[in-house]
């Protein structure tokens, strides 16, 4: 085989192998990343799937038991960026899901009204069994532009 061709073949095989690794890894590890409203819209198809859900911790919904390390709360859609509350879709109750996390300490900045990303399994009854609760930094640290 001419040497040039031989190297194109060798390099091509490596590139193919890398491509194959990426493809299978995407297939095996990807998760939906949804907002609370999107979860409620696709409710039916999501049972049992691993999800990442972005939302806000509902005030007054938190229960935390330090002895068993069990954290439960409700996640809701955050209000619109302009500050007005989310308008509930007519006749539908505002989207809200129960989140339960077991065996993990309460995240540092976890509090009512904070934005969180919950990673976990979406159970058929609409509860999210969280594997991880990430708190994003509250927006008050973003410097406001004085006008």
């Amino acid at each position: 085989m001419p040497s040039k061709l031989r190297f194109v073949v060798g390099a091509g095989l490596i590139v193919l192998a890398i491509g194959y690794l990426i493809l299978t890894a995407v297939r095996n590890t990807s998760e939906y990343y949804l907002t609370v409203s999107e979860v409620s819209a696709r409710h039916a198809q999501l049972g049992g799937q691993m999800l990442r859900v972005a939302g806000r911790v509902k005030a007054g919904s938190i229960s935390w038991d330090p002895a068993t390390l069990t954290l439960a709360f409700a996640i809701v859609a955050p209000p619109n960026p302009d500050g007005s509350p989310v308008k509930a879709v007519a006749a539908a109750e505002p989207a809200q899901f129960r989140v339960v996390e077991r065996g993990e300490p309460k995240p540092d900045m976890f509090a009512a009204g904070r934005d969180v990303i919950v990673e976990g399994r979406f159970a058929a009854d609409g509860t999210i069994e969280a594997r991880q609760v990430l708190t994003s930094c509250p927006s008050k640290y973003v410097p406001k532009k004085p006008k």
Partner: protein
Amino acid sequence: MPLIGQLALALALLVAIYSIGANLIGLRRNSPELLLSARHALWAMCAMVTVAVAALWAGLLASDFSLEYVASYSSVTLPLPYKFAALWGGQQGSLLFWTWLLSIFTSIAIWQNRRRNPEITPWALIVLAAVAVFFLGMLNFVTRPFDLLATVPPDGSDLNPLLQNYWMAIHPPSLYTGYVSAAVPFAFACGALITRRLDDAWIRTTRRWAIFSWFFLTLGNLFGARWAYEVLGWGGYWAWDPVENAAFMPWLVMTAYLHSVMIQERKDMLKVWNLALVGMAFMLTLFGTFLTRSGVISSVHSFTQSGLGPYFLTFLIVVIVAYTALLLSRVKDLKGPAEFESYLSREAAFLFNNLMLVGIAFAVFWGTVFPVLSEAVRGVKITVGPPFFDAVNGPLALGLIFLMGVGPLIAWRRTSPEALMRTFMAPIVMGVGAGIAVFAMGLRQWYVLTALSLAAFALGSVIVEFRRGVSARRHLVHEAPARALVNLVAKNNRRYGGYIIHLGVVFAFVGIVASSFFRIEVKRSVREGQSFTIGAYELTYLGLKGIEDAHMEDLGARVEVTSGGRAVATLMPARLFYKRQQQPATRVAIRSTPLADLYVVLAGVDDQSGLATFEVFLTPLVFWLWAGGFMMAIGTVIVMWPNVRERAALAAALGRDAPVAAETPLEPQAAPGGD
């Protein structure tokens, strides 16, 4: 002060634009005066940006809260070192810092090339000035560091507590130095392409810059990992977060570049590939800045979202399109004479190593932008997390470690299988032996067995190289072994420094594999006096101790650690509360030994029940990740050390009379030579 800073930035922008114009006209009219004036203009730019940086530092140190930046990222009670570090704590400041580094590096490049590369340098300076114009444009019009507040607050809102840590004080400058210095090789590559001076003068001219950039990218990544380890309190050091990926990708591509240029210097091959790599490395540094500053991809790093995104994206696209077009238009001039002869050659090993490094970079890129792409194409955001990166990069890392063992020993051009067996006997024996030993210890994961065997193989290959060099010196120059070793490294610093980096990579790799596979984790809430165990350790919670000052509250838990009834240590993990930002943070207590790290986090204290929640990790061999990183840094310093032989090669490449080489390099007979 703010006025001075603002003015300095405006002037810097003007002189940078002037410099581009003077260079262009000077080149057209063939006017040395104009070309010189263009260089002086860039020195003036550097001086102006320095004034702006000094002005912002002055504002931070004086707690001048009329400056919006100071009010946003500092406070009266912020400790002094962090007031300095606040320069890169926020967006405007970090862009200013970036521009400052760029202007300094440009000035150094001008000085280095005051008498060499007369054709390439003006074009390289035009490219560097154009990059500076972009950043200065941002600083003057879009994200201004010297904006004033209408009403002056009595105190600032403080630096983010997560950034109030010494690793964070040194991590961004390291990373930025690595990022920005990648612009110099890129600029000279552009100059070489434009002027069609496509021999390896541009490579040799900027080789030290590329290594310098790699050195700081390495440190930047390591410091970032160390910061995550010490501060974030989740027991790990790397989470494949987009921002980490942004720092990792240029490092990968730069690593590939540093290897493949050796092939060009030696065999005059892979010219297009090298130019592509140096371009990619620079673009990835821009992409990294874009990622962290645009908010396009959600990250746990809380960066300010801002209007910078579109500008950065536009600039990035312009750079990609222009550079690709330039490269394609010169492909004909870049035909290399030599071709690959055999798979069993060092060229092949280097080529495959390059493909793997770029492959990893591509996989990381793909995983990072996947959510955005999937949303654009399928209308739903799909993310891939750490499992994706592990699944792809795990096997590729094995390939790389294997090639790292092959590369130093295999001959250039071609090798016969018999010679190959002879050369590789010792490393293979070491690799297989390590595999058997690990198997005998009871480990059965295929990945761990393979990884440790390959690590031992790569280690063996470096040892063989050192042994060969030392024994050659002992026989030829009759030196004692220790002295021979020192001289070997000193006289061939580029080659043996590189091997020391390889050693560091092997150690870091072993640390990463062990800590990823064998970390154990215990989470427990206990009352005062209660104990729990992790591995061979027993931890007893002895009570709380609180300290408070104007800046923060510090609530520590005393934890006694015993092992087999013997006291080992008393640890003091703490919960911190930063008053200005009303934000809690954690201070991890780590007891590190070469065998394993005991990592204790006080995750919470419940006032009602008196329960303290601890999160404890026992991570084997993670020490070796940091030790390996340190070794990589040492090796790089050795590589960068000035060397007579290299200066001669540079002079030769530039077509001047080479200074007389002080000593003929000692190349052991059997060694195929090289770097």
